[in-house]
């Protein structure tokens, strides 16, 4: 067992324990903090996979933006069910059964596909060319410029929609029933 494998197993164990606590911890703010740990683990996995740009983006977007957004939302709504009442639905065991069945099914599929036993092939060259190829392919008219632009329009629409939906209702004119 090489050093890289040991590092992988340690990070994977931390990630799995963190994921479990994300979905089970009673206080939602703790779940949000565990989510940050899991995302840091994913960033470390991306470093192991030599996807340096994606690792940085994972830290920036997930840890820096999305988890902060989630924690803000938890704080804004925390009076409702902070420690009172059950945090899980009554049929939580059905949910556990479904996810366990799915996990078993996925592992069974993995065991049947011999192509999954491959080891990593060599990267074509040093990281710099991979990175510049990634950047060029996002603005190349023959490759991924259309998905890239559609994603940016989606982000713009989501931003406008989020501002519109979460706007306070102080200046609402007639037609509202409240």
């Amino acid at each position, binding site marked *: 067992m090489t050093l890289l494998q040991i590092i*992988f197993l340690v990070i*994977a164990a931390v990630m*799995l324990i963190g*994921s*479990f606590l*994300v*979905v089970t911890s009673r206080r*939602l703010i703790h*779940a949000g903090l565990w989510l940050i740990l*899991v*995302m840091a683990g*994913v960033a470390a996995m*991306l470093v192991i*996979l*030599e*996807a340096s*740009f*994606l690792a940085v*983006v994972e830290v920036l977007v*997930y840890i820096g933006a*999305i988890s902060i*957004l*989630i924690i*803000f*939302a*938890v704080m804004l709504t925390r009076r*409702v*069910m902070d420690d009172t009442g059950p*945090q*899980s*639905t009554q049929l939580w065991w*059905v*949910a*556990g059964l479904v*996810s366990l069945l*799915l996990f078993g099914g*996925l*592992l069974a599929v993995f065991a049947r596909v011999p*192509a*999954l*036993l*491959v080891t*990593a*092939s*060599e*990267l074509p060259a040093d990281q710099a060319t991979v990175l510049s*190829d*990634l950047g060029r*392919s*996002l603005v190349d008219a023959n490759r*991924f410029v259309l*998905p890239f632009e559609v*994603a940016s329009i989606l*982000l713009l629409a989501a*931003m406008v*929609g*989020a501002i519109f*939906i*979460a706007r306070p209702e102080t200046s609402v004119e007639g037609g509202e029933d*409240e």
Partner: protein
Amino acid sequence: MIPLWWFLALAAAMFCLGIYGVLSRRNAIGILMGIELMLNAVILNLVAFWRYLNPSVISGQVFAIIVLAVAASEAAVGLALIISIYRRRGTVVAEDIDLLKW
């Protein structure tokens, strides 16, 4: 070297834990956290396949970036909806938000 299926098994476990969170949480923000776990597992899967099967073609990373953009917009709109519902109805419990249920 780490075999590919280690990454796939880890991503599958994260995805299934996310599904458990989505199905069992009562709090709507907890459901969103489960969705974020699932999307993280998908990103890990895409990058692992890119690295192991065809690292000379960059599309795996491009896919992961698109998934990331979708995840960001989903989180923004989802949390805006939850805060709006909380303002109007004073609850974030998913089973109390049943206006469209009959």
